[in-house]
């Protein structure tokens, strides 16, 4: 009998494609335009690892060991770094594009959802203490404000003026002035337990885990303006190629919908327990982390087929905006 509990805790950074990595480090041109690419930072919660994937060839460039269940992540190509939260401790780690941990800060055990603002500052929810904190690029606190109960995901508008939290246990979304932290709106979601939240096309979209719905919210009018039925236990929402995609954890599927009409176009099979989802930087598809299959899959937004499958350490979650295009310097 074989029992797997996925509790391995590798203690060091594990280079993959060692020859290539060595070659890159041999020169000092790792971040030169010639090597700039599309990257994904995938957190493996059970495997305690962050994998940086080159989305042009779907290979893992390097991996960084990170203790205590890394799950939420936000990649900021402008700052050439990703932010990762360890769910067990609430420690925030800054990881550069070569997989080096360059800074950490302990934010308290409840620190969870994370998102970056256009100016490089960041927002972190506090699940236990029902709060939202804005941090500078130096990780110092700029302000803290109260949210609804159990805030999970957080999202920043394209202009950087609004920030919204999915308050899971209140079945609601809170919208704040991103500059001051003042609460502007609180809007009930279509279904219970909104978890992930994202801005797209000036609307807010939440995956309502217990409601099997995606809520569509107009943040300015402060109204729920529509909903999309999903498969069982939706987790994340992303947009690519003019379509919306939802990971359905229990169903093991992606719901595909039209963001304009909100009509469901397809429900396609994906790996087991799909969770984190983000668009490819070229908008041609989405990247999905399958928590139970220990894989990352790239799904083509037009053909709706799986373009690539990448094995990653146990329990990939990648909760947040984990993809982006490197900025040449």
């Amino acid at each position: 009998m074989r029992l797997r509990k996925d509790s391995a805790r590798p203690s060091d950074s594990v280079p993959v494609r060692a020859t290539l990595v060595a070659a890159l480090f041999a020169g000092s041109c790792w971040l030169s335009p010639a090597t700039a690419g599309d990257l994904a930072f995938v957190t493996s919660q059970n495997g305690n690892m962050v994998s940086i994937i080159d989305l042009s060839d779907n290979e893992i460039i390097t991996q960084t060991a990170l203790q205590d269940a890394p799950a939420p992540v936000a990649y900021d190509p402008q700052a050439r770094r990703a932010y990762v939260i360890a769910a067990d401790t609430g420690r925030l780690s800054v990881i550069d594009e070569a997989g080096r941990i360059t800074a950490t800060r302990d934010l308290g055990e409840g620190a969870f959802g994370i998102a970056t603002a256009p100016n490089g500052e960041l927002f972190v929810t506090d699940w236990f203490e029902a709060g939202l904190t804005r941090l500078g690029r130096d990780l110092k606190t700029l302000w803290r404000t109260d949210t609804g109960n159990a805030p999970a995901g957080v999202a920043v508008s394209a202009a950087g003026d609004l920030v919204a939290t999915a308050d899971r246990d209140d079945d609601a979304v809170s919208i704040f002035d991103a500059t001051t932290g003042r609460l502007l709106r609180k809007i009930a979601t279509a279904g219970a337990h909104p978890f992930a939240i994202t801005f797209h096309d000036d609307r807010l979209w939440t995956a309502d885990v217990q409601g099997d719905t995606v809520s569509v919210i107009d943040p300015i009018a402060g109204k729920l303006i529509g909903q999309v039925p999903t498969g069982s236990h939706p987790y994340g929402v992303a947009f690519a190629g003019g379509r919306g995609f939802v990971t359905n954890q229990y169903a093991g599927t992606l719901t595909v919908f039209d963001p304009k009409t909100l009509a469901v176009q397809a429900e396609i099979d994906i790996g087991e327990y799909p969770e984190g989802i983000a668009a490819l930087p070229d908008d041609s598809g989405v990247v999905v982390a399958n928590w139970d299959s220990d894989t990352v899959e790239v799904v083509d937004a037009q053909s709706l087929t799986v373009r690539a499958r990448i094995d990653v350490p146990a329990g990939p979650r990648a909760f947040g905006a984990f993809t982006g295009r490197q900025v040449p310097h």
Partner: protein
Amino acid sequence: MKRKLLAVIVGTALALAGAAQAHGPSRQKVEMTQVLDATPDEVWQAIGKFDDMSWHPAVASTEMTPEGAAADISDESTRILHLKAESGDPTITEQLIGWSPEKRMYKYMITDVAVEVLPVTNYSSTLQVKDKDGNAEVVWKAGFYRGFPNNDPPAELNDEAAIAAVTGVYQAGMDALAERFGKAE
């Protein structure tokens, strides 16, 4: 409430669980496999009915709710497992969330259970019989959170207790199947 068999299972689990850790909840995973000396179809015949968990030694009876409801409708079919106990009527209510007899597989989630019975929350599971060189390979796996949703869980409701309890239940089921069909070497 005293539950003889489950008490033994969970008791063993707690002994293995160790000290409480103060940290936030994260989802846990348990997966167990067992290759049996029987064909996949034979074993699926025994364990592949959502309305019959009599193959598991901790289950006294399986009740469909509402009574007589179909047992093969995803997101609808719901069963109540009545567990063996010296007194009281500990139960676990589970809903079918995926039905794939062609893969000899079904998925289900717990919709109601007391943490004193099984110290988990947000539990979903997959039971499958695969074909391994003609023999049945039973794969039983689950994703779940611990019983205590906030920080500083008591020892009996922490991550380790949840993992150990699920492991205990799966082990008891696998042991019963190994006894019934024999292990394949």
